[in-house]
């Protein structure tokens, strides 16, 4: 049967996926189940635990929270579902401010990344193939070197007696150094700087695939370059714009390192709040509630990203 099946499918030129059924259920299950269970155990189940702990009460102990399930007697299971942590988040407007501020900072940074990244991606996609590879490498290379140290580099540039202020004073443009470090401005610079490659790469990928004869046709039909750009290039690069924006926005909302090193110590970002609750206040249940609330907000963009990603890289997936 197996041979005959092989022959038939060879004649029909059936897709490889069908042929691979010959891995048999066992082989395929073995291949898929190792990463599947790894992710189940170390990615999905942890969220359920975070959810659970976000409903428990803080106690001074190790671990510093009270168990939810509590055997009162042999057969009575007492479940204490404590909504107090969430009530605390809603009542204390510190958390609201931190969430809104994080979303605003991440949103504005994403737009700035797009405004800087789009022309760069466009220029790379329209250069000669040799230059294209070199330029692409130049964009990726900073991403390979330490993120922490690249953020650190900005301290030296932005501080009061740093390079930028010294240069401006030497040029006679200013008399007094401008306070740049420990401001929101520094946070924007840091986020845009660190996440720019994540914006450029998907933009480049969608611009590079574009059929340039469309632009020629538009020019032949009398449309001006900017008109052709708005009506053809921009819509065709939308998948790249969406992917780039999500790749910048989602992690930037929860960013900790950049506001901690460059930002105003008084200004609130939710990643920093979570860190402080956890490490300084040792309040694990509230930190968990902060994480769950952040996740609830991010779940829609994350699902959107995931679907876009699967559509993009899984185009070859066979049924």
């Amino acid at each position, binding site marked *: 049967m197996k041979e005959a099946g*092989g022959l038939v499918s060879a004649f029909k030129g059936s897709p*490889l*996926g069908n*042929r*691979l059924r010959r*891995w048999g259920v066992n*082989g*395929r299950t073995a*291949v*898929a189940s*190792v*990463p*599947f269970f*790894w*992710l189940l155990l*170390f*990615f*999905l*189940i*942890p*969220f359920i*635990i975070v959810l659970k702990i976000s409903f428990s009460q803080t106690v001074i102990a190790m671990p510093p929270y009270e168990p939810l399930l509590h055997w009162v007697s042999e057969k009575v299971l007492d479940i204490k579902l404590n909504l107090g942590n969430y009530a605390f988040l809603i009542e204390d407007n510190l958390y609201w401010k931190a969430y809104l501020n994080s979303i605003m900072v991440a949103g504005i940074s994403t737009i700035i990344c797009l405004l800087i990244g789009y*022309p*760069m991606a*466009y*220029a790379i996609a*329209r250069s000669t193939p040799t230059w294209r590879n070199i*330029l692409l490498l*130049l964009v990726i*290379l900073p991403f390979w*070197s*330490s*993120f*922490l*140290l*690249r953020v650190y*580099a900005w*301290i*030296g*540039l932005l501080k009061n007696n740093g*390079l930028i202020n010294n240069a401006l004073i030497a040029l006679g443009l200013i008399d007094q150094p401008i306070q740049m470090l420990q401001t929101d401005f520094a946070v924007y610079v840091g986020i845009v700087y660190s996440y720019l*490659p994540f914006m450029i790469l998907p933009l480049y990928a969608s611009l590079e695939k574009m059929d340039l004869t469309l632009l020629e046709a538009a020019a032949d039909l009398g449309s001006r*370059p*900017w008109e052709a750009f708005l009506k053809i290039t921009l819509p065709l690069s939308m998948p790249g714009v969406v992917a780039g924006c999500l790749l910048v926005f989602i*992690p930037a909302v*929860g*960013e*900790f390192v950049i506001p901690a090193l460059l930002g105003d110590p008084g200004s609130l970002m939710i*990643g920093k709040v979570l*860190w402080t609750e956890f490490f300084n206040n040792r309040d694990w249940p509230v*930190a968990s509630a902060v994480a769950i609330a*952040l996740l609830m907000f991010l779940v829609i*963009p994350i*699902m959107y990203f*995931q679907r876009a*990603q*699967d559509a993009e*890289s*899984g185009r070859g*997936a066979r049924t």
Partner: protein
Amino acid sequence: MNTARPWFRMTALALGLAFLYIPIFSLIVYSFNKSRLVTVWGGFSTKWYGELLHNQQILDAAWLSLKVAAVTATLAVALGTLAGLALARFGRFKGRTLFSAMATAPLVMPEVITGLSLLLLFVTLEQLIGWPSGRGMTTIIIAHVTFAMAYVTVIVQSRLSQMDDSLEEAALDLGARPAKVFFVVTLPIILPALLSGWLLAFTLSLDDLVIASFVAGPGASTLPMVIFSKVRMGVSPDINALATVLIAIVAFGVAFAGYWMARQQRNEARDAQMALAANQQMIESLKAG
């Protein structure tokens, strides 16, 4: 070709690249500064590199980070390859949607959430089954593998989707078993993708501060954790020296990998040409016969 306003494109590109590289160059230049004041030039000196070599805390942390990164990258490539293979080649199987969601979500998940959730998992597991007892290198590696394998999965999945699968078809036609097809045909073709996946996982692990801070026990400090606590105190020239060393290693590694991949491609092209020529010769001889 659309050649409107090339100066605008070139200017945007030049400014953008300057923005990306000026901070890095400033780090390198000031690592050779004699003065302790990082932004005042006090003459050329390599003394900070010497100091780096005598800083036992940094050396220990660097050694731990390198070990963690090497193990992480290897495990992440193994798991990510399996995941990418399943997503690209197995069609629609039960649980694929959940699988694919779990495989790509770590790419964008804010690090504070991943770190917190993994720590709570380790604490819960320790209470329930006594493993992992305490936290340290093992827990850091598990955490890093979990987010690094997402990158490997995406790289492998997209490489497999782009790949011409007629070679795999041919091998199956010739009676090779699927496992053999994978090791003899598929694996050599996707090897460059696996290499870049390994390097990426290695640097991601070497670079991570937030997740490691959550899941490392009090005894284990990775290099980013040491750097972070030093940097919080202010700018210090030995960190600049350390940054320069790391940048040099990365630049060398990437250049080497790029050279290796280019050579690999050339070899492939040459092999394909030779196969084609042999084929041609065979057809000619058949015709003659």
